[in-house]
Structure formats: C-alpha cells, structure tokens
C-alpha cells in the first residue's frame, strides 16, 4: 500500500464533496433536519389526554372527583356533557380518548360507605395509550377514594391516621421522566447510521455511473488504497456530524451529557467505520447511485429504528427477534450512547458493546475491501 495514492484519492474525494451541493446537504442539513423531526416528532409522553365527562348526579362529591382528574397533568377535562350519546359521539370522532360516567346515586352510596363504581370508556385503538390511561385514571380514583375513606373514618371518631405504606420514588437518570431525554440520544444513533451509510453509498456507484471508474481502475491504485482513501474524508465528516448531533441534543434539547467524551468518541468512531464500510459495500454491489441509496435506507434506517432498542425495549421483543438484534451494530451503539448521555457509565460497563462494535468494524472493513474488484464485468 502506498500512502501517497491513498492521500491522492482522499484529496480528490474532498474536492468532489465540496463541489457537490447535494453532499453538503447530506452532511449539514440532513442531521439537523433529522434531529428536529425525531426530537420533536416522537414523544412517548402521554399528557393532557382529552377527557369528556357525563356527571349524572352533579353533587359536591362527584364534582370533587372530577376536580381530581382535572388536577392531574395526564388528563384534560375538556367538556361535561348531559347525555350518554354525546360521549359515544366524542369517542367516535376522537375528540376525547377517555369518557367518564358518574352514576346518579354516586354521593348517596358513597355516604352510605357502600361500594360505588364509575364507568370509564377508553378509546383503545392505541393499546399503549389506553393502558396508560387506565393506569392513570385508576391512580386518580384510588387517591380520591382513599381520601373519602379517611374522611369517613375521622367522622366516626377515630383519630386521624395515614395510609400504612407509601412509596417514595426517586427517578434516576431521567429525573423528570421526559421521553425526550431518552429519545434524543437515540436519535443521534439513527442520524449517524443513516448519514454514515449515505455518505459512502454513492461514492463508488458515482464513479461507475459517470464512467470515471474505468480510467481509475486502469491505474495502479490498489483496492485497499482506493477504499481507505475514499473512507478517510467521510470518516472526518462523520465525526464532525456526530459532534453536531450531540451539540444539538445537549444545547437545543437540553439533554444531559454525563459520561466520558473518550468513551463516546471511541464508540462513535467504531460505529462510523461500521456504517461507512457498509455504505461502501452497498455502493460496490449496487453500481448505481439510486439502487445504492435505496439499499442503504432499507438496511440501516429500519434496523436502527426498530431493532436497536430505540423505541421498543429489546428485552420485550420475541426471542427470535432478540436474536436478530445481536447482529445489528446500532443496538450496541445505542446502548453506549444512552449510557454515556444519561448514566455517565464508566468504560468498564460498556466494554461488551465496544468489543462488539470493534469486531463488526473489522469484519465490515474486510468485507468492503474484498467486495471491490478492479475489473469490469
């Protein structure tokens, strides 16, 4: 291998990147656009769920219960209606996700100390939201009925007492339980996966399409020099993009960065080598820019989105799917990035992830180098 040829290829590639407006778009605009779209677009927080109520009694007690709902940040009591049909219509239209019906003898039975049930109708098209709505509404009612119970006990002459057991929860790593804090580091992974592959996916295909490859392979440049020369500038660009994403995540979205920069850079470098080599491989195989970019999108975006634990925890996937995630480089990078951002985990806890990434990067560099042959077909 001759260094001067590698450098000549790298220089040429840089000149072409600089002169091509599209590649500047991919390098600068795409990460920012993706960070914004995903950062704001994906929110798993369920807050201010629209609620309609049908209070058939209208007593002090029933109003108190509804105030508890209103006080919760998870619900937003939008409207009180005066018949059942209006609730059904609202659920049908989707103007409310939860409808509460309070029976006509609510206060009566409450005062008698007897059991009383209220009806909750939930739009369960999205089962996840429905489950959370059920849990939250049960919590609201639990609190209210506890208070009613205590009042009742006090009124019957027993001195004030508190519930025997209570939970003092403290949330770590994501103190305010904001899903954005979890998602933004994940978005960094997705952006890097997509950008990394895209950067190199076009580089070989472009030479074939423009006919420059024939001249290039008639020179003594070797496959390895060509690949390293082409990957080097994109590696630098990719690392700058990683920093851009992290800067955006911390400064714009206010996500904490608690871990070590060196762990972050090691993991990012390894992951970049993986995706750049993958893009190079696609470019060699596809030989056309369009096909290469389509393969790239399918092969990186979907796995990074679905199988990396970005939105769906890997532990909860079916065993077969879990097995597939082990060959997804994004899975390991996702783990490192989340831990580095939120937990500030030391390198010793992330060693397995880093080793997996290191192995994959070696493997893909090898595959990418071997895939390209200095031959016409």
């Amino acid at each position, binding site marked *: 291998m001759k260094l001067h*040829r590698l450098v000549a290829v790298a220089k040429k590639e840089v*000149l072409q990147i600089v002169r091509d407006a599209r590649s500047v778009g991919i390098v600068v605009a795409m990460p920012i656009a993706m960070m914004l779209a995903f950062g704001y677009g994906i929110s798993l927080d369920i807050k201010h769920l629209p609620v309609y109520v049908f209070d058939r009694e209208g007593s002090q007690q029933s109003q108190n219960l509804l105030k508890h709902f209103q006080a919760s940040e998870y619900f937003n009591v939008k409207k009180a209606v005066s018949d059942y049909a209006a609730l059904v219509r609202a659920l049908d239209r989707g103007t409310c996700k939860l409808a509460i019906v309070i029976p006509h003898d609510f206060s009566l039975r409450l005062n008698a100390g007897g059991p009383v049930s209220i009806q909750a109708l939930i739009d369960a098209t999205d089962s996840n939201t429905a489950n959370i709505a059920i849990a939250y509404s049960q919590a609201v009612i639990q609190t209210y009925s506890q208070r009613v119970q205590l009042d009742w006990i006090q009124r019957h002459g027993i001195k004030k007492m508190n519930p025997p057991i209570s939970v003092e929860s403290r949330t770590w790593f994501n103190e305010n339980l904001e899903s954005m804090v979890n998602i933004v580091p994940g978005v960094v992974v997705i952006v890097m996966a997509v950008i990394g592959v895209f950067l190199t996916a076009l580089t070989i295909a472009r030479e074939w399409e423009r006919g420059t490859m024939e*001249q290039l392979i008639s020179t003594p440049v070797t496959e390895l020099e060509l690949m390293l020369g082409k990957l080097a500038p994109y590696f630098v660009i990719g690392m700058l993009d990683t920093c851009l994403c992290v800067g955006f995540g911390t400064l714009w979205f206010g996500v904490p960065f608690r871990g070590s920069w060196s762990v972050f850079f090691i993991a990012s470098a390894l992951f970049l080598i993986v995706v750049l080599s993958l893009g190079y491989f696609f470019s060699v195989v596809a030989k056309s820019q369009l096909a290469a970019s389509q393969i790239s999108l399918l092969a990186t975006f979907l796995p990074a989105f679905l199988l990396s634990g970005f939105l769906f925890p890997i532990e909860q996937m079916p065993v077969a799917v879990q097995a597939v995630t082990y060959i997804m480089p994004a899975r390991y990078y996702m783990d490192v990035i989340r831990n580095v951002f939120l937990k500030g985990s030391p390198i010793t806890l992330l060693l397995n992830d880093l080793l997996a990434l290191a192995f994959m990067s070696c493997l893909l560099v090898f595959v990418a180098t071997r895939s390209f042959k200095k031959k016409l077909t």
Partner: protein
Amino acid sequence: MEKNNGTPSVIVNNLVKKFGDFVAVDHVSFEAQPGEIFGFLGPNGAGKSTTIRILCGLLRPTEGKATVAGLDVARQPEAVRQKIGYMSQKFSLYNDLKVIENIRFFAGMYSVPDAAMAERADWVLEMAGLKGRESALTGTLATGWKQRLALGCAVLHHPSILFLDEPTSGVDPVSRRQFWELIHRMAAEGVTVFVTTHYMDEAEYCRQLVLIDRGKVVASGSPSELKSGAMKGELLLVGCEPLGDALELLQNAPGVLDAAIFGSAVHVVVTNAQEGMAGLMEYLSEHGVTVSKMEPISPTLEDVFVALTTRQAESRTKSAEAKNVQ
C-alpha cells in the same frame, strides 16, 4: 522511457472472451512492435474495446494468452498497469475537478515523484494546449481539449505502451489532426501506441493494422498490404444516376461481389474488372440507369473495410430494403 527492442510490446495469442453465450473476442492473435502505431479496426461491436480492456487488465480473458510489455495481463495486471497508459472510449476524467486537479490526481495514482510533478504537469498542459486554463473545471472544456487532457493524464508516468480506445470519436477535424500529431510524437519517442478507430483516414496513419469483425481477425498488415491484398476481386468506380436505384441493382447484378456508395459514385467489387465492365454497363442501362463513368480503381482502406466486414454489408442490405418499402 522503456524500450523492449526486439521483443514485441503486445503479444496476443488465441485470445477468447465470452460474455455468457456471446463470444465477443474469438481466437484473436496479433503482435505489436515497440514504437509502432498499431491500429485496431472494426465496426461497432466487433470486439475492439473488449480486446483493449483485456490488454489493460480490466477484463479477464476466457481463454488464450495476452502479454503486454513482457507481462501476462491475466496474472500480473498490477504490474502491467504501471507500464501502460489507457484512455477509455468514454471520456473518463473527473468533470467536477479542475484541469490541474485531474492532472495531480492521476499523477498521484501513477506515483509520479513530487520533484517531477511540476515539470510533468507543465508538459501535459502544454501538450493539451491548456496553458492558462489550469483552474477551469474540466467539464466546461470542449471535447477536443478534454481528449488531449485525457491523453496527457494517461501518459503522466511515461508509459512504454499506450492504449487508446476510439480517442477521437466526436472530435472535430482540426482537433483530430492535433491529436494525431501528439500520437506521432509519442511513437517517435519509442512509445507503442495501440489505437482503435473506425476513421479510415486515421487508419492510414498506422504502421500495422488489424481488422476485426464479430470478434474475429479478418485481415492484418500494413495499410498498403491491406489495400493490395485483402480484397477478393477488383474494384470498379461507377458514376451513375439515380444513385439509390443503381446501388440496389448493382448489389443484385450478376458477377458483382459487393457494391457500396462512396461519395457521388458506387464502388463495385467484381471478380475481374475488365471482363465485368461491359456486362454491367449494359445491365444498368437496361434498367434505366444512366452511367456517366465506369473505370477500374485501386481500393482505399475504406473499400477494404467495407468489403471485409459482413455486418456493414448486412445493414446496407437492410437500408436498401427500407428504401424498397418506401
């Protein structure tokens, strides 16, 4: 500049290249000597580019052996590449790089030492007539300049053998002439120039010619050898009116081996010129064609080319049929 005096620069022995069932190169053999301009002629799709690509190590031969500068192209393609310069049929420098950037890039690929860099770049610019346009984007150059720059980039490392695949296609006559002056200069310096073309005037510039058709060598020799020996039969020039009808008649006339339009006349191949003339004269006037002139002539390379390449004959028949339909 390397000189392999005595041993041929290019030796091709029973070379075969198949793409699936299609035989692109069919047992081709020839030799090119050092310092000569070697012309490789043939119609489109005859296998010229395939052969040149095999010789540059860009394609693997299916059978046979090819040696370039004493190296087996199938076994030592990298060693071959350092000794040769190649210009592909399609312009293949980087259009989005400046002239000087293309030169520097290919100088890097060919390991031109830094010390020689400025002098070589200067030489290429001078040769291509691009002095003062170093920082023009290559894509903005006219075709003639592009071709000369491509030639310059292919010889930056002073190769001993130069492969040019239809280097002047789509280039205007003045630029073609300039290009050939460059080729002559290089050959005079001892470079073997292997060039494919289908311009007959360019073929005349070559010392040796190989004519191939459908992957097979149909004739070889110097231009004068080809002209005197390769034709089966003798040539008549027939000046007549109307030309289209005359061609059609002549192609089907008794005793005529071949006929083709050249300028405002028809060239007719017959077994014997003197015997054929009288019969043809009669035949044409019987069919309402006025003959203004009929004389035996010595064939040009184009006559040889047309007579020996069957594909051209076929397409000519087709165009004649098309005329009939109209």
